[in-house]
Structures are given as structure tokens and as C-alpha cells.
């Protein structure tokens, strides 16, 4: 927490205004090719996501206390789509035309292209034991979270 305060990064809003358009345009193409949603149908939804993201970034920059931009963006997105907020159905109707997996594809394309020599070396150096432990960590967190959720949801009578 102390360190999060110290590391409040400077956000260049102007850069994001343009760079977000690039990644959203790529997602828009993917959203058409895979999920087969016409570009013009998805355009308003993409624009809504663009505005939400920019609002989140502005809040990150000027909020009196620091939270990572990802947290602010989530909060803004959640707030404007709450069932009690006027116009949320209109937003939802447009957002439905943007497939979330189509938004994730460019993220992973950049991520594959961004793998550094250092990461490859660290991975090679870590050895197979760490990899085994890592996979157990993923499996363990996933299964135990699901198990706790299952028990509590059953106790609550939700499922």
C-alpha cells in the first residue's frame, strides 16, 4: 500500500486518447471476423468502452487517493451499468454487440509479441520444479476457490 502510493505513475492522457483508438479498432475487426458482428453494429459499444476507459483514466490521474487505473475503470464501468442508473439498458444493448473474447485477443497478441529475452531466460533458469509448483498453484487456487464458492452457494440455497 505504501509502495502503491509511492508508485503513482504519471498517465499521459493525450497518448491514451489515440492509442486506445488503435487497440479498439483492432478489436472491432476481430469482433467482426470471429463472433461475426458487423462493424457498424459494434461501433457504438466500442465507443462506450472507449469513453468508460478514458473517464477511468482521468479519475486515476486526478483522484485524491491512488488506485490502479484498472480498478477505477472497473468501478466506472460497473457504476454506469447498475440497474438503478437511467440509460443503463441502452448502454447494455450496445455493449452486447462487443464480444469480450474479441477484446481479449489483441491483448494476447501484444503479449506474445512482447515476451522479453529476460523472461525466456528467467523461465529457463527457474527449472522444471518451479513450473510444476506454478501449475499446482493455479490448479490449487482455482479448485479451492470454486470449492469454497460451491459450499457457500449451496448453504445459501443459491444453487
Amino acid at each position, binding site marked *: 500500500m505504501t*509502495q502503491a502510493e509511492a508508485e503513482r505513475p*504519471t498517465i*499521459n492522457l*493525450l*497518448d491514451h486518447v*489515440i492509442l486506445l483508438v488503435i487497440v479498439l479498432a483492432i*478489436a472491432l475487426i*476481430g469482433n467482426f471476423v470471429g463472433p461475426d458482428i458487423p462493424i457498424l453494429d459494434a461501433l457504438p459499444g*466500442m465507443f462506450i*468502452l472507449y469513453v*468508460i476507459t478514458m473517464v477511468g*483514466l482521468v479519475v486515476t490521474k486526478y483522484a485524491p487517493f491512488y488506485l*490502479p*487505473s*484498472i*480498478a477505477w475503470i*472497473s468501478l*466506472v*464501468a460497473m*457504476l454506469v*451499468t*447498475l*440497474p438503478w442508473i437511467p440509460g443503463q439498458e441502452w448502454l447494455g444493448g450496445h455493449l452486447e454487440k462487443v464480444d*469480450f*473474447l474479441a*477484446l*481479449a*485477443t*489483441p491483448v*494476447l*497478441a501484444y*503479449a*506474445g*509479441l*512482447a*515476451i*522479453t529475452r529476460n*523472461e525466456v531466460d*528467467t*523461465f529457463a533458469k*527457474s527449472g522444471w*520444479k*518451479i513450473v510444476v*509448483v*506454478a*501449475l*499446482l*498453484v493455479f490448479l*490449487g*487456487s482455482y*479448485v479451492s*476457490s*470454486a*470449492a*469454497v*464458492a460451491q459450499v*457457500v452457494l449451496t448453504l*445459501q440455497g*443459491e*444453487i
Partner: protein
Amino acid sequence: MVEQRKSEESGDAAVSSLFRKLATEWKLHLVVVVLVIVSELIYIREIPLGPGIILLLPLLYAFILGGLLNPNVIRRSVGGLVRSREVRAASPYIVIAVMPLIAKFGTLVGPSMKTIIEAGPALILQELGNVGTVLFAFPVAVFLLRMGREVIGAAHSIAREPNVALISDKYGLTSKEGTGVMGVYITGTLFGTIFFAIMASLLGSLNLFHPYALGMACGIGSASMMAACTGSLANIFPQMEEQIVAFAGASNILTYGNGLYISLFVTIPICEFLYRRFGREEPEPASTTEGGAAR
């Protein structure tokens, strides 16, 4: 503060430096466009595996194809299309591209707020699933693999950025604990998304857990892990997509909020305690000097 004022004063300079940046990066984006188109053309594929299925998602192909073009991964990548300039430019775009994805998840959480509040206790308590991480990974690491103090970094959490920062703060990244957390972090970066897609589709198709419970558990990792995880579940249970994604998104937001504290106050102390009882005896100085020159 000073820096901020400077950037506002020189607006014109900022614009021209932005365009210079774009002029050098167009090739990267072109490659990404092609990767996205190819990946979305292949689209979602199902592979039957025993009693379950594994779902292959476009995001997985995009990552693998990106890796194959990356000269750091494959030394002689296809035609030298991607060079180190593109690799360096790509990294900030992961963060930028993840923002609208996070926004999209948020907009799926909002409308389901009533359901989420009703399932509140389950959502909050499943965050403690992290303790299960230790119980799964610790015994194997210590008793079977004879691992040293690396296990404290490796087994205490799913090792996303905040956990790495915490271990780095507490032990230093060149310590054994640091090596452990970095190993899991890198494995997660390289294989986490694929692993989450496989895990979610197998567990989903095996019918061991309710899809809601599996959805909540999708929120424990990074945004791309969550996308892979919920994407797989949503394809197996299309009629419950809305709730699965909403629960995952909500659980992910909770994880940002408390993941660090669960590591700090629960899982690291548990790991330390278990290691003192069952861990290997080793000479003290070995843990601090090794790798000290790496940074």
C-alpha cells in the same frame, strides 16, 4: 508534479512526439491486426479429452502466434518480420489493450449487481481460496521436490504483479523467495492463459462444480486468465454466460482489493510457519548472497 506541469506546457511537443511514436510502431500494429484476423478465423475449437473437453480460444492462438514471431522466443522467427524494436513497443500496449477488456467486464458486473449481492458471502469467502493454493502446492514443493525457501515465494499466491511487488518488498527479488515468486509469475505470463482455459473447460465439462462457483473462481488471476477462463465456461454453459461473467468480474475486482492483504496477513505467514516446521534446514547466508549481483 513538476513533470506533469512540463508535459502540459509543451502540448505541441507532446503531439509531435506521439506521432513520431506512431510512425515507428505501425508495423507492430499491422502484425497484431494480422494475428487477430487469423486467430478469429480459426475461432473457437473443441477438443474432446476423456470425459471432458478442452476449448481452444482465439486469444490462445494470438498469444502463441505472437510468441512464434517473437525473436526472443524463436531465434530465427519468420522472415525477421518482428524485431526487437517491435518487441519493445508491444509491451505498453498490453496494458492499454487490457483497459477496454476490464471496462467490458465491469459493464457485465453492474447489471447483475443484485445477483452479486445475494451471492456476496460466497464471493467474499472464495477469496480465501488462496489458502488452498498453499495446501496444494506447498506439500508437493517441499516433500516431493525438496524445494528450499523458494517455496514461500512460489506457493503463497497466484503470483500476479501485486504479489511480486509484495515479495520483492519483503524479501527482495534476488532472494530465494524472490526467485520462487518470479518463477511462478513468468510461468503464469507464458502459460497461465492456456492453463486457465484448459482447467476451466475440463472442470466445466466434468460437472464437479456448479458453473457459478467455477465462474467466481475465474476471477483469481489476471485479466487474460479471467477472459480465457470465463470464455471457456460461457461456451460450455451458454445459458448461464451472464452470471458466470458477472461473478468472475466481481471476484476479480475483489481480488484487486484484498489479494495483497490475504498474501501479507494470511498466506505468507502460513508458508513461513509450514516452512519452519517442515522445510529443509539450510545455512542462513545462502538465501541472501546468491544472485545478489544480478541487479
